[in-house]
C-alpha cells in the first residue's frame, strides 16, 4: 500500500472534544493552509518571543498562505495563554520588506486529556484536521534561539510537496540532549536505517495528511501523550514510508530547566515509547540492514553555545548506588559480563571511570529485550535504567571533556555503528 493509498483510507477517529468557543473560532477561520502549533505549560517567560518569531516567519516567508497559530496549553498558572494573546508584532515594517497578503490567526486554548506534550499535540492535530491544513509545524514554547527562519525551514519542504516530515537539526552543546545522543539516536538509526540526528528534537514540520494519519492511531492514553510524542511521530513517519528530511535550524537554546521535568519520568516515557514502537514496527526494523543519510536543508554555520554545568561526582554516586541496590533486579536480564563490569565499574575512581560503547549498547538492547519478553514490570524495568543512564552520561562527559563538537559527533556516530552491529543479536533473540 502506497502512502497515497493510505491517505485515502485513513480517517481520524475518537477525536478530542474542543470547546464550543474554540469550535466557533475554527468555524470563523474556515480553512487554512498552514498551521503552527506551540504546546506550553508555564512558559509565560519565553512564549512571547516564540509567538513573535512564528508570526514574523509566517509573514515573511508565507505571505500568500492563510496561516493559523495554535497555542495548546496544559493549564498554566503563570499567564502563558495571556502572554500568547498579548504577543503582537506591532511594527512588521521594521522586520519585513513587504507585508503579508493573506491574514493570519491566533488561537490559545487549553487541551484535554492526560497532562503532557503529546496531548497538546493531539489537539493541534485535531485543529489542523478541522481547518484542512496542508502543512503544519510545531515548536517548543521555551525556545530562546528560535528565529523566523525556523518556520520557513520547517514548512517549506512540506509546502513544496517534496516531503511529509521535517525533523530538526541543531547545534547543541555537547552535554545537551544526552538521552538523544546516548539512547534514542543510536537506537533509531540502527532500527529504522535513517540517520535522523534529532528524532526527539521538539520542533517538526509535517503535512496535513500526516497529521490526520497520526490521529488515526489509538495511542493517546499511553506515554505518547507525554514526552513519548516526539519519538512516536518520527518513528511513525519513517516506519510508514512517509518522506522525511532534516532542516538545519542553527543553535538550540532554551530555558535550562523544564518545569515539572523529572529525569526518571522523562527517561521512562521516552524510552518506554521507543520500546513500544519496537513492538509495533518489529517487521519493519527486522528488515533494516544499515543506516543511510536523509536529505538535509538549511545553511550550516557555527555558533557559540551556552556552557552546561554538570556535577560528575554526584552522577557517579548515583550510578554506584544504583549498581549496589538494583543489581538483583538487573541480573534477571543483563548478560553476565555486563553485570560483572558494572560491579567493577562502581569502584573505579572518577578519573578512570568509563562505560564503553559496547557495554552501553548491550545494556540498552538488553532492556529492550526484557521489555519485549515482559521479564519485569514495565515501570520497574524502565525506571531502573536511570542510574545506568546517569553513569553512561558521566562517562560521556569525562571522555569528551576536552573534545570539540566534531569529535563528539564522531564519537556518537561510532556508538551508532556499534548499535547497528549489536542489532543482529537482538533480531535473533526477539522471536
Amino acid at each position, binding site marked *: 500500500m502506497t502512502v497515497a493509498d493510505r491517505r485515502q483510507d485513513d480517517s481520524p477517529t475518537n477525536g478530542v472534544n474542543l470547546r464550543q468557543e474554540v469550535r466557533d473560532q475554527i468555524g470563523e477561520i474556515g480553512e487554512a493552509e498552514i498551521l503552527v502549533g506551540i504546546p506550553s505549560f508555564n512558559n509565560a517567560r519565553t512564549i512571547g518571543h516564540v509567538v513573535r518569531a512564528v508570526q514574523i516567519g509566517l509573514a515573511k516567508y508565507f505571505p500568500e498562505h492563510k496561516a493559523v497559530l495554535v497555542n495548546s496549553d496544559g493549564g498554566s498558572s503563570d499567564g502563558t495563554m495571556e502572554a500568547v494573546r498579548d504577543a503582537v508584532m506591532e511594527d512588521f515594517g521594521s522586520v519585513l520588506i513587504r507585508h503579508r497578503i493573506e491574514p493570519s490567526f491566533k488561537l490559545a486554548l487549553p487541551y484535554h486529556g492526560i497532562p503532557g506534550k503529546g496531548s497538546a499535540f493531539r489537539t493541534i492535530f485535531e485543529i489542523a484536521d478541522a481547518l484542512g491544513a496542508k502543512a503544519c509545524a510545531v515548536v517548543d514554547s521555551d525556545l530562546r534561539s528560535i528565529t523566523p527562519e525556523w518556520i520557513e525551514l520547517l514548512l517549506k519542504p512540506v509546502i513544496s510537496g517534496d516531503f511529509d516530515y521535517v525533523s530538526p537539526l541543531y547545534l547543541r552543546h555537547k552535554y545537551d540532549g544526552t*538521552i538523544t545522543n546516548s539512547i534514542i539516536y543510536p537506537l533509531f538509526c540502527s532500527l529504522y536505517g535513517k540517520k535522523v540526528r534529532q528524532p526527539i528534537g521538539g520542533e517538526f514540520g509535517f503535512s496535513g495528511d500526516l497529521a490526520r494519519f497520526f490521529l488515526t492511531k489509538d495511542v493517546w492514553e499511553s506515554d505518547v501523550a507525554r514526552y513519548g510524542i516526539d519519538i512516536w511521530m518520527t518513528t511513525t513517519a519513517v516506519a510508514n514510508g512517509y518522506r522525511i528530511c532534516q532542516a538545519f535550524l542553527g543553535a538550540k537554546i532554551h530555558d535550562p530547566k523544564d518545569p515539572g521535568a523529572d529525569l526518571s519520568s522523562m527517561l521512562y516515557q521516552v524510552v518506554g515509547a521507543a520500546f513500544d514502537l519496537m513492538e509495533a514496527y518489529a517487521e519493519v526494523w527486522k528488515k533494516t540492514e544499515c543506516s543511510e543519510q536523509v536529505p538535509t536543508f538549511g545553511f550550516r554555520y557555527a555558533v557559540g553555545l551556552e556552557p552546561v554545568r554538570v556535577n560528575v561526582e554526584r552522577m557517579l554516586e548515583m550510578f554506584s548506588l544504583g549498581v549496589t541496590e538494583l543489581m538483583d533486579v538487573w541480573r534477571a536480564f543483563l548478560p553476565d559480563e555486563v553485570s560483572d563490569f558494572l560491579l567493577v565499574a562502581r569502584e573505579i575512581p572518577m578519573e578512570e571511570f568509563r562505560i564503553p560503547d559496547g557495554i552501553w549498547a548491550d545494556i540498552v538492547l538488553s532492556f529492550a529485550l526484557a521489555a519485549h519478553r515482559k*521479564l519485569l514490570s514495565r515501570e520497574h524495568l524502565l525506571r531502573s535504567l536511570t542510574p545506568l543512564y546517569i553513569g553512561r552520561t558521566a562517562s560521556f562527559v569525562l571522555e569528551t571533556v576536552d573534545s570539540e563538537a566534531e569529535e563528539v559527533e564522531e564519537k556518537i556516530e561510532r556508538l551508532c555503528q556499534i548499535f547497528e552491529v549489536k542489532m543482529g543479536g537482538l533480531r535473533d533473540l526477539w522471536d
Partner: protein
Amino acid sequence: MEGVFERLLLAPMNVFFEKVMQFLPNLFSALFIFVCGLLVGWLAKTVLRWLFAVLKLDGFADRLGVTRGLAKGGLHDSFSSVLARFIGGFVVFVFFLVSLNNLNVDLIQTMIEKFLNYLPNVFVAIVILSLGYMLGTFLGRTVLIASVNAGMRISGLVGRFVKYLVFLLAVAIAVDQLGIGAEAVLVTYTIVFSGVVLALAIAFGLGGKDTARKYLEGKLKEKKGGEGEDVMRHL
C-alpha cells in the same frame, strides 16, 4: 463348663472376628482409595507441570520475585514445579482423608469433619500470605527504585522495610483468619508497627538533623544564587 467356655471366650472372639471381618473390606477399600490417590496425585502433578510450562508460569513468578523468595526459603526448584508438587500432594491428602473416612470409625470421622470445617480458613490464609508476599515484593521494589533514583543512600533499607511491613500485615491478617489469638496478634502488630515508626522517627530526628540543616541551607543558597545543581537538558 462348656457353656462357660463358650460364653467367656468363644462368644467375644466371634464378635471380635465378625467385627474384623466387617472392618477388613473397609480397610482394603481405604487402602485401594489411597493407592488411587497416589496415582491421581502423580498424574495431576505431571499434567500441571506441562500446563505451567505452556503458560510460562515461571517467567511470571520471576517477575513477581516469587522464585527468589522460594530460593531464600531454601527451595531451589522452579515455582511451577513447587506448585505442581503442592497440588499433587494435596490431591493425595484428599484421597487419604476419604480413605480414612471409609474406615467408618466414629472418632476418625469426627476429627475429619472438624478438619474439613477448618480447611477453608487454611486456604484463605495461604492465599492471603501469597498475595501479601507478592504485593510486598512489588511495593518494596517500587520504593527501592524510586529511592535509588532520588539518590537516597538508605534505599535498600527503605525498600526492605516496605516489603516486610506489607508481608507482616499479611501475616497478621492470615493468623487472624486462622483464629489463632486474633486480638493478641493485632495488638502485637500495632505495638511492633508503632515501635518501628517511633524508632525511625527518633533515629532520623537525631541522626539526620545535620543533613536536614545542610539540605535546607543548600536549598536556600540555590534559591539565592542558583548554584549547585546540574542544568543539563536530557532530551
